Structure formats: structure tokens, C-alpha cells
């Protein structure tokens, strides 16, 4: 117990005696964690970013011209049973003709004497279904319905985006690992400088019978506290930053508690491991 009291006291004194260097270590950890946090946020939000930048992922399902109103109502009923659909809107032949006229400046009826455009459903998918694979399976489910002539959706664009998203994830993860490793080195070097400054004191401690554990525990506690402080600060910055972003571009990123827990744990991990690395090199 006396030992624990000593260790806590000594760690606390460590901060008091070396306010500046403690502050520098904490700031270093905070800064690195913010960078890592940004990469982590991007990694976990690639899908959201893709969908937010391509909000118009809808499926057009063209209806067989021979169906009457009650059959169309039944079809809509069936459609709404399909998993992953958020919203269905009906476009009648007349609406389609009006749209056509708006777009081409010509009245089809005048030219052809009839309206060849089919009526259609416009299907908006739920957020989590907006991936190339899922969109395809939903589209397949729709086109399998009796009374649906044809299903049109822009899968090509999604696929290209998906491919880049995949690549972005890989590159992002690589950078994440790289930055994490670099952070560990930077932090352990900071601690090492602090320890070198205390080198003579540590030697004396050893000469009067202090064990390695006794000498290193305060450094580890200091690392732990600095890491936690860095983690909390970085989380606050990331939270505020993402809130600002979300106001600017709604739905661009989704932050979850997991990110903050990740950043905090990483801070603690860095703090402790950094101290251990630094001590190991010369104690």
C-alpha cells in the first residue's frame, strides 16, 4: 500500500516538476490522435460519404401498359413488401409525358397521336441498401414482380464509386497504421527525453535499492494520464469538427461512440507503451 501511495505521489510530483514537458507530451498525443481520428472517421464513413455525394440512388420500375388502376395499386402493395425500400412514388403516363415535354420541348402526343410512355414507380432505397450488391438484389426483386416491365437504375456509377471507395478504404487503413506507428515512436521519444533528463536520479534510485518496477511505475502512470488526457482532448476536437461538417453537409459523416472509444483507448495504449519503450531502452 505504501508502494502504491508512493507511485501515485511520485507520478503526481512528476507532473508538477515537469509541467512543460508533460504538456508537450499530452499535446503531441492529442495532435497525433486527431490525425488518426480523422483517418478513422474517413475509413468508417467511406460508404456514407459515397451515398451522401450520390443522394439520388433511386430505381425506376416501368409498369406494363396493360395494367389497370386497381392492378397498379396491387403492384404497389407488393412492391412495398420488398426489403430495403424507403419510399415509393407513382408516376402516371401523363406525368411522364409532361416531364418529357419539359425536357425536350415537344409534345409526344402531338407527334405520335398517342402517349407511348409507360407509367412507373420511383423507388428510393434505404440508406444502408445503397451499395452496388444490395441495390442489384433489390432491383432484381422488383423486376421479378408480375406487371413490372423493366427496371432501370444507375448501377455503373455506383460500381465505380464503390471501387474507389474500396481503394480509399485500403489506402486509408494503410495510412492509419503508418501514422499510428509513427505516433508511438514520437511519443516514446518524448518520454525518453524526459527520462534522460532524469537519468542521474534514476541511477541513484537503483544504487539505493529501488527495483526496476518501482522506478518505472510513475513513468507508466504519467504515460497513462497523458494518454488519457490526449484521448479526451482529441475526442472533443473530433466531435466538434464533425458537428461543424455535418451542419455544412448533412449526412456526410456519421460519428459513433466507437470512434471516441477507439481514440481514447489508443491514447491510453500509446501513453503506456510509449513509456515502456522509452524505459526499456535504458533502465
Amino acid at each position, binding site marked *: 500500500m*505504501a*508502494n502504491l*501511495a*508512493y507511485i501515485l505521489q511520485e507520478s503526481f*510530483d512528476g507532473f508538477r*516538476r515537469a509541467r512543460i514537458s508533460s504538456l508537450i507530451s499530452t499535446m503531441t498525443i492529442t495532435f497525433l490522435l486527431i490525425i488518426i481520428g480523422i483517418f478513422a472517421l474517413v475509413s468508417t464513413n467511406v460508404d456514407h460519404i459515397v451515398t451522401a455525394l450520390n443522394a439520388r440512388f433511386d430505381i425506376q420500375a416501368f409498369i406494363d401498359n396493360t395494367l389497370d388502376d386497381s392492378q397498379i395499386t396491387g403492384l404497389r402493395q407488393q412492391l412495398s413488401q420488398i426489403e430495403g425500400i424507403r419510399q415509393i412514388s407513382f408516376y402516371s403516363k401523363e406525368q411522364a409525358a409532361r416531364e418529357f415535354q419539359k425536357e425536350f420541348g415537344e409534345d409526344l402526343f402531338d407527334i405520335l397521336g398517342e402517349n407511348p410512355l409507360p407509367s412507373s414507380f420511383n423507388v428510393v432505397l434505404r440508406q444502408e441498401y445503397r451499395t452496388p450488391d444490395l441495390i442489384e438484389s433489390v432491383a432484381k426483386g422488383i423486376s421479378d414482380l408480375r406487371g413490372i416491365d423493366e427496371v432501370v437504375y444507375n448501377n455503373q456509377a455506383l460500381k465505380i464509386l464503390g471501387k474507389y471507395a474500396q481503394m480509399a478504404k485500403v489506402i486509408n487503413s494503410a495510412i492509419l497504421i503508418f501514422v499510428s506507428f509513427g505516433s508511438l515512436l514520437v511519443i516514446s521519444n518524448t518520454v525518453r527525453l524526459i527520462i534522460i533528463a*532524469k537519468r*542521474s*536520479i534514476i*541511477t*541513484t*534510485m*537503483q*544504487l*539505493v*535499492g*529501488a*527495483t*526496476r518496477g*518501482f522506478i518505472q511505475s510513475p513513468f507508466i502512470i504519467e504515460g497513462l494520464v497523458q494518454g488519457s488526457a490526449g484521448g479526451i482532448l482529441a475526442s472533443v476536437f473530433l466531435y466538434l469538427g464533425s458537428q461543424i461538417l455535418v451542419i455544412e453537409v448533412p449526412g456526410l459523416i456519421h460519428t459513433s461512440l466507437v470512434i471516441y472509444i477507439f481514440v481514447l483507448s489508443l491514447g491510453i495504449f500509446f501513453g503506456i507503451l510509449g513509456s515502456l519503450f522509452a524505459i526499456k531502452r535504458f533502465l
Partner: protein
Amino acid sequence: MVELNNVRHAFPTGDGIRHITFSISPGEFVFLVGPSGAGKSTVLRLIYMDLLPDEGHIVVSEFNSLFMKRRDIPQMRRKLGIVFQDFRLFPDRDVFENVAFVLKVVGRRTKEIKRRVLRAVADVGLSHKARKMPDELSGGEQQRVAIARAIVNEPYLLLADEPTGNLDPTTAAGIMDVLERINARGTSILMATHNVDMVNRYRGRKLHIMNGELV
């Protein structure tokens, strides 16, 4: 209890000590006397195993230099009190904390630490400076703090390297009184000094060292 058997230690420069054989019985007061550079500090460093013999062996209590494991060293040093020639005080804490450190290392209770530290600090006449930092003390006062730290845990053997080196004759005599008191309580003492005149005024076995060898 302490035994050096034909010990040799050479520094890379070629200086060092050789053929050192002697032992210290429990409760003995031994002076290691010799001129500057004779090898006194080297002998002491070998005993607290900051250096290891190139030849021969050293026994301190149940520890033998031939079989020392890394993790045994702190245990061995806790049985010793060491007054370093250059004091080796902790510059980052006050007199009380400097002395208290060795008791914290062995896990004594806070109350007992306080009692023992105040006692040791009083023994060296520094009660009124217990809250001073080392750099606020004179050389002689720093030396007395080093002595207080060495005696506070009632060591089995006290190794004192020139403990009166920086002191005026009166204060030096006061320190010798402290050492004799400690010795009377059962602690063996090995004191290194170059001051032959002073040594002759005290009882105790004298070992003379010259050019790294006992004479």
C-alpha cells in the same frame, strides 16, 4: 558477513584494484585509508556491486558476486547504507524526501517513515532544514543529508565514501559521533578516507590501500 577474496577489477584504462582480500565482521568499524586515486571508491563500488570483479569474488550477507542475478541486486543494496563520495542526492526533492526515499523503496508505512526520517535528520543536525532543497544547502549540509539517507534504514553495513571530506573539524567530529552511534547499535561500517590523521584518533581496524593494492 562481508568478504572480499582476491578481488581484481581493471578499468579499460588499465587503472583499478587487485589482490584485495579482507572481511568485515558484524559490528566492526573499518577504515579504508589511502591517497587520492588509490582505489578506495572502486572497492566500495565493488561491494555494492555497481562494479563486478574481473577475478575473485565478493560475499555480502547471503549474496555472492559470482551468483548474483539482476533482480537480486536491489535486495542486496537494501541491506546497505551508502554515503556516496559525490552525495548523489535527488535534486528534485527536499531533504525529508531524499531521506524518505530509501524507506519508501522497502515499503515502510507513512507514519514510520516520518518518525525514522525525522530521527535520522536530527542525528546529522539538520532538523531545521528538512524542507530545503539540496541546492539550497552547503556542501557539508548536503553531505550530512547523504549520511542521514544512508543510516535511516538501519543498514546491516554502512559504506561511507569520504563522509567527512567537506566538513570542518568540528562538524566532522560530529559526523564521526553519528557513525560511532550507528556502529554501537550493531551496524558494521566501512569508511573510506584519505585523512590519516583523523583516522588515527578513532578506534577501529585500518586497511591501507595504495595503487590499487592493500599494504
